[in-house]
């Protein structure tokens, strides 16, 4: 009978056993390993330096927001081993305390960063996670173009900038579906939306689509169940685009998309105009609700959202034909999003829900674009046999 092969010790434990465990040994250890060190499901986070306390700060639901790192005896190396399921992607920072002074910083040993409008954070790619290749520039893919327009809005009492994406090979003699994207500049900057569209359209995975990227002015008002924003979308923007561009002009050719509060704004506009939009893409929608009472814990900004979601949940209505939903399982919003699935399904809307091992991040939404877009507007992949 053969016994199973002994499990290889973690790199940090092999280092701990080393004699002498001196400065030079730590130098060699750090030079040899990419940080965090990912060994199967176990990820070793490291910090090197003098400190009184080092904490790993992250927002994975189910884990403490701050986890103390341990100092490797006789060195200035701090470590924490965390188990992360296959395919995880976790944003984090380090909190270093020296006396009374506390500093929050990105991991100096890890060059991988996650970007967002509020700044950067370090990111750990768990075992099996790979940045999808279709999110990076493909020199062979035909490039669509971006152009900026201003849409005067009586509803919002301002001229609304919109960035239009026209697919490569755009022709006025063709007709295209329309995708309206909330938080447009962020989707372009942090979720590589143009690159993704170029690649997926070129590969026939997504139909040639015209995309309107919206620039919010005050998203905490406009995206929290605002009548004015919904009126802008349905009565001003879409009719104008359908007059000036070769768009299909039917519900099946109209889709609203948004992440976080943008998801709320998308659903809210569809609820106010059922049947106008054939599809919705709701990524990590901020669908905060209460089953009883008003204590939702989201602060005053979420009051109108909770009121809206509670009302919708009390009387769910079919507002589109298809709803694509996604959410990271490490987000606080995972439970509300899961709860919305049966609510949408109960109305007869065709609902597809995708969970990712990720957080409330732009990279998460970027990585989900392929699933979402190819489901809502499938390309000619099924037609092409080279």
């Amino acid at each position: 009978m053969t016994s199973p092969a002994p499990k290889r010790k973690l790199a940090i434990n092999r280092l701990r056993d080393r004699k002498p465990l001196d400065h030079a040994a730590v130098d060699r250890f750090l030079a040899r390993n990419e940080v965090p060190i990912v060994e199967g499901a176990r990820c070793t986070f490291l910090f090197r330096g003098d400190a009184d306390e080092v904490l790993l700060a992250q927002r994975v639901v189910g884990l403490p927001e701050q986890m103390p790192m341990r100092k490797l005896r006789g060195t200035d190396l701090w470590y924490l081993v965390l188990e992360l399921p296959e395919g995880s992607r976790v944003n984090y920072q380090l909190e270093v305390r020296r006396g009374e002074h506390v500093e929050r910083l990105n991991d100096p040993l890890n060059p991988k960063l996650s970007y967002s409008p509020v700044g950067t954070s370090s990111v750990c790619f768990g075992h099996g996670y790979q940045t999808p290749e279709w999110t990076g520039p493909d020199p062979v893919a035909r490039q669509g173009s971006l152009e900026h327009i201003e849409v005067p809005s009586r509803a919002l009492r301002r001229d609304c900038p919109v960035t239009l994406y026209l697919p490569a090979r755009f022709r006025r003699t063709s007709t295209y579906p329309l995708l309206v994207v909330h938080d447009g500049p962020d989707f372009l900057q942090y979720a590589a939306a143009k690159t993704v569209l170029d690649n997926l359209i070129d590969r026939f995975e997504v139909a040639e689509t015209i995309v309107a990227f919206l620039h919010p002015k005050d998203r905490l008002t406009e995206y929290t169940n605002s009548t004015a924003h919904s009126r802008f979308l349905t009565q001003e923007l879409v009719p104008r685009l359908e007059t000036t561009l070769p768009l299909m002009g039917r519900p099946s050719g109209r889709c609203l998309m948004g992440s976080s509060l943008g998801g709320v704004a998308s659903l809210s506009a569809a609820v106010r105009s059922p049947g106008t939009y054939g599809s919705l893409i709701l990524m990590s929608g901020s669908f905060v609700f209460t089953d009883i009472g008003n204590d939702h814990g989201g602060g005053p900004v979420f009051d109108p959202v909770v009121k809206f979601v509670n009302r919708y949940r009390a009387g769910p209505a079919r507002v589109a034909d298809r709803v694509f939903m996604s959410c990271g399982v490490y987000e606080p919003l995972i439970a509300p999003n899961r709860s919305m699935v049966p609510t949408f399904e109960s109305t007869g809307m065709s609902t597809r829900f995708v969970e990712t091992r990720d957080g409330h991040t732009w990279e998460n939404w970027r990585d989900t674009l392929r699933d979402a877009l190819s489901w809502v507007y499938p390309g000619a992949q099924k037609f092409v046999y080279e």
Partner: protein
Amino acid sequence: MSPRITLLGPQPRSSLRRALGDLDPEALVSTVTAGWQEREVDDAELRELVGLRTVNLSLHARMQSVYDEDREYAHAEREHEAALAELRQLYLVQLDHALSAAYDVARGSDARPRLRERALTDSLRVVALLDAQHMQRVSDFQQAFYDAWLPQERPAVARNRDEIQSVLEGSSALAIAGGHVGELARVLHLFHVAPHLPARVVAWSAGAMALTERVVLFHDFVPHGVAHTEVYGRGIGVVPGVVALPHARRRLRVGDQIRMSVLSRRFAPARCLVLDDATRVPLDEAGGLPPDARVLDHDGHIASVEAA
């Protein structure tokens, strides 16, 4: 006289040479690369591969010129295509339920095999009925469109048809490349290519599909899961009784015996022809498959025609 037809799989480097190898060195070969759409003109490699005098029929470019010249017709066709797309969506909704039912029945383990087989036969009849009705509706739509717009009488179309006929009459062979099968079928119909085929026709991938009576679309590996295999519409019909499946091993879950069995039985008595890389399938004079051609048998395996 019926043309001699050879169907090829993808990557037809060697198989194309073999299919055309016995032609006179001075023979003219017409080519169709319309499936490549706006890349139709990038055919240098193909010309080299054929190794004979070639002329590209430029069907995609001709179609674009028709649209530019005859805006009224272009608009009408766009509306027509939109209606066909709606028709397709309605068919897919029905197909989704009917095929899911067939798979569920086929996979059911509780029922006695004899009863399950009967239920599966019934389910497949429903699927086949949907397929047949969709084909009929698409054909009726196409006919109504042609009857209303009479493309053959529109100068831009008629002129191109005449030119194409003339080139084909001077050609010894026609080589049809793959690409977008919908576009290919559309231009082959619009320019009325079928009645003027030269004595030899070689077609691969989407080109092979476009020659059949019934174009069937399939892709089991789309990003969001599995897409149902569906009937798209009519090809030019010079290869009867065959459902062409190029890239079968790459695009179908060939290891899923139940899916493959349903696929094969659904289109019976037509044969589901597996066209993998470099495959060469010379049809006999009656358009029949050779005994060694690879097809899906009713058990869901890939087998030769004689064994299936």
